[in-house]
């Protein structure tokens, strides 16, 4: 089947199988580099994208689902090379080591803060529960997020 959707603001059209995941289509067919495969079962968050502004695991989303929708990856956040506040905070706090988890982390934080600009620690940990980081021990990530939370 042929699907059409917007990917980071650009229209794309691609032929997909009805059983194909969005993750496969983005990575293998469209060459998107920032969306990562970690587990394929919703446990790691490396594959998260925003679909019509809401976070979804692309490994658990069938490609057909995004037909007519808007898919955003972390690549769409920076404007004219200028990083967003959250991205800058990640850099300043050394919140990325290997960087594998970073795009998913940034997108989840963005989705959280959009709905709730000043989350409590409990709300923050709850939101991030589906994003694994194997490098940082989470402390720099939490510090980066706290630095942009409006209190």
């Amino acid at each position, binding site marked *: *089947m042929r699907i059409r959707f917007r990917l980071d603001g650009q229209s794309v059209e691609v032929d997909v199988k*009805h*059983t194909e*995941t969005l993750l496969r289509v983005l990575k293998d067919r469209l060459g998107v580099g920032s969306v990562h495969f970690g587990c*394929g*079962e*919703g*446990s790691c*968050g490396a594959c*998260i994208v925003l679909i019509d502004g*809401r*976070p*979804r*695991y692309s*490994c*658990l*989303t*069938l*490609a*057909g*689902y995004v*037909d007519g929708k808007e898919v955003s990856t972390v690549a769409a956040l920076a404007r004219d090379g200028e990083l967003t506040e959250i991205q800058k905070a990640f850099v300043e706090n050394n919140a990325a080591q290997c960087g594998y988890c970073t795009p998913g982390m940034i997108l*989840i934080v963005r*989705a*959280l803060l959009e709905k709730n600009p000043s989350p409590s620690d409990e709300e923050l*940990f*709850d*939101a*991030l*529960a*589906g*994003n694994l980081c194997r490098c940082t021990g989470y402390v720099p990530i939490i510090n980066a997020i706290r630095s942009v939370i409006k209190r």
Partner: protein
Amino acid sequence: MSLITSGYFAPVSVREVLSLKRRLRDKALIVAGGTAAVQLISKMIVEPQAIISLEKVPLDYVKMRANSVEIGATTPLARLIHRKDLPDALKKAVESIHGLALKDMATVGGNIFTPAPAGDIATALLSLDAVLILRGARGTRSVQLSKFYRGPLQFNIKPDEILTAVRVNRPPRMSAFLKQTPWKYSGPTIASVAVGLDLDKNGKTRRAMVALGGLTTHPYRAKKVEKMITGKKLSEQLIEGAAQHLTDGVEVIDDALASSWYRMRVAEVLFKRILYNITAGG
């Protein structure tokens, strides 16, 4: 058009879903949030010829009535998270499932079908004596959730039917849900217990629903325990005695996550904690 039997279908009404089901029969897989269903596909456990996605079917709603709560089958858990008007057991079960993306995707209806270590929402709904609303080619019927599970991955649903809503009639005055996981955020369920209770003015139990999750493929009601505590005051002796019968006649899962012995002990502790909290709270 009517000859097409493979592909990705996103019908916009329950009627359309039902006519697709009639046409495609067991060739099609229903996908709601996809958190379990898509894994079945990507792990090649199933190879459906067609997908029927419920994403556009208007079953994403919560209806509060004077003495009932109805939740549409495709309502994502995120929709329930800030509602103060839901029964406590359901609220706590939703809170116990972590991760922003997961709560945005996972639906209430999908949880009913998803085996242990999932099924937390189903466990909470069992303790509220929830009813499932099923629609099929021949109309609508309702089935008590406690009569829905027939065995591992076997449900009281016909091939032409889908689940459209869950409804709690006469929610119990008190309800609670506790679950134990190996780590706090997003750990799999070792055991969960949900209790719904109505007490009379003398403090005797008028109605008791005790549901256990994580111990078997699908949650179940501990009927013996319910009988033991109904009509009586919740004394320490009664609670301790009843806790010994939570898994009567049940074969408890024994796997890498936890032994069956451990799961049973955890369930006892959670059950007692819930009842002692209730008796301490007056």
